[in-house]
């Protein structure tokens, strides 16, 4: 009977296959003849298996962890091994630079186009429609320059004032107590509106109603110097006029009143606009808002614009649209009643006499 320690040593050697055959047989015999030893051997064997298993598994786990770390670490193992085409490599390297350069180029191109007024030109050329208000900035600048020379005052505020828009156009009386109609595009963005009659008197006016869809604006003369006129000599024709109708207009393409004559050339306006006529009549910037009158002294429309690049294509808003627009004005908000004359006092008169009567009712609209 050997002691436990010796037995374990023997067992280790036995299990490791370190015994030669005679020792082996002797050890096996000993175990067979000794059940306690056999059991001890079995336990020892199982225990060592477990121990070994544990060690193997621990080793495997640590290998696995290393592999996993290497796999999950981005771009070290993967990128090193992969060969990238030169183009891709270059792109990766200069990607940011090229994107920045591209965006700078795009911004530069479009801002240059914008600054040089390219888009405005496009807009102008694509519409072909030109509103006939007269830009008086050039005149005003000259006057201001003269004033500056004379007074030798260099005031910042005056300079600011110079940059404001200054337009001229035409307007005419629709109701003798001071209601005047003109185009919306004339008074748009206006700080103040003044009306000047043929005698040269200047009167202050307020915009009381705008109708951007029909390009119409109603003004009311709020100046105390204004004395109500007699009823308008002209009336407004609600029905459509016929093609070839002989028409004329009075307006202010310059500071003096100007007469223009022509005929109605189409029942529709720019781009088939049914609320306007096409006229063949010489009009210029400043004629906007002028009345279009037929031979019997009826207002059939209001000059609003002309088509650029086409000869003799002027446009006038139909009187029907004007009347509709007038009826849309909330009457409660008016200072005095707006009355439309129904009795024509021009019919049968000679053209020159008609004009004499009418011109009192036509104003030069000055917009600041």
């Amino acid at each position, binding site marked *: 009977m050997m002691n436990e*320690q010796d037995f*374990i*040593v023997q067992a280790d050697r036995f299990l*490791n296959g370190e015994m030669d055959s005679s020792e082996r047989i002797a050890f096996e015999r000993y175990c067979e003849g000794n059940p306690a030893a056999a059991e001890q051997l079995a336990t020892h064997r199982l*225990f*060592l298996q*477990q*121990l*070994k*298993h*544990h*060690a*193997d*598994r621990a*080793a*495997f*786990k640590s*290998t*696995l*962890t*290393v*592999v*996993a770390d*290497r*796999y*999950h670490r981005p771009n070290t193992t993967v990128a090193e091994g992969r060969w990238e085409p030169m183009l891709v490599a270059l792109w990766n390297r200069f990607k940011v630079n090229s994107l920045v350069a591209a965006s700078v180029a795009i911004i530069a191109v479009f801002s240059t186009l914008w600054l040089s007024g390219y888009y405005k030109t496009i807009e102008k050329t694509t519409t072909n429609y030109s509103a006939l208000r007269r830009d008086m900035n050039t005149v005003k600048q000259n006057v201001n320059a003269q004033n500056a020379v004379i007074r030798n005052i260099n005031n910042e505020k005056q300079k600011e004032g110079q940059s404001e828009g200054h337009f001229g156009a035409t307007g005419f009386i629709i109701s003798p107590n001071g209601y005047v109609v003109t185009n919306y595009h004339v008074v748009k963005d206006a700080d103040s509106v003044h009306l000047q009659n043929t005698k040269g008197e200047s009167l202050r006016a307020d915009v009381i109603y705008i109708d951007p869809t029909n390009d119409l604006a109603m003004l009311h003369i709020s100046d105390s110097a204004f004395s109500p006129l007699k009823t308008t000599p002209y009336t407004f024709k609600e029905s459509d006029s016929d093609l070839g109708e002989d028409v004329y207009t009075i307006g202010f393409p310059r500071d003096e009143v100007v007469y223009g004559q022509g005929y109605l050339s189409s029942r529709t306006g720019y781009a088939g606009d049914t609320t306007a006529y096409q006229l063949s009549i010489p009009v210029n910037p400043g004629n906007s808002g002028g009345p279009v009158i037929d031979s019997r002294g009826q207002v059939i429309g209001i000059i609003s614009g002309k088509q650029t690049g086409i000869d003799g294509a002027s446009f006038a808003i139909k009187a029907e649209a004007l009347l509709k627009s007038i009826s849309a004005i909330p009457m409660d908000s008016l200072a005095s009643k707006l009355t439309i004359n129904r009795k024509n006092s021009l019919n049968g008169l000679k053209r020159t006499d008609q004009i004499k009567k009418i011109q009192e009712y036509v104003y030069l609209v000055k917009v600041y």
Partner: protein
Amino acid sequence: MSDADLKTVDGIACGDAAVLESLYHDYFPMVLHMVIQNNGTEEEAKDIFQEAVIVLYDKIKQGNFELSSKLKTYIYSVCRRLWLKQLGSQERAFQDVSSYEEVIPVEDDLAKHRETEVQLSLMEQALDKLGEPCRTIIHDFYIMNLSMQEICEKFGYTSADNAKNQKYKCLQRLKRLFFSTR
């Protein structure tokens, strides 16, 4: 099983790093997709995949390893099962995770894996309690197969007999620790 799968299985059995790497390369994206699609994060996918590889290792280590399906299907099934269990334990919502791949039952393997895990954690605890230098002596003798003479030199014992005594005491203590915690 295909030749490629057999090769992979052998590689796993001996803990071949290259094989493990290709295992990640071939199958991890699929598992990542499955986990991400079902409320998981990349970190969780990594853990799930690692555990699945260990399940596979345990199964291989039990001997007479056989698969009725492709290795890919097996790994996917294990990962899916593990992920469903994790979602369930955290009471997180999951959508249908079945439709992506073919799935085979892996419950038995997972049960065995858990059993092994418990067994080995007992061994781990016992070894932890055993402490140094006993742990290293045992490891060197039984796992690294160093001779008593080498151990004697390594630990600076005056004689091989001394080392033998020490080793015997360590072994007895480890056995006591291991069997007492059962």
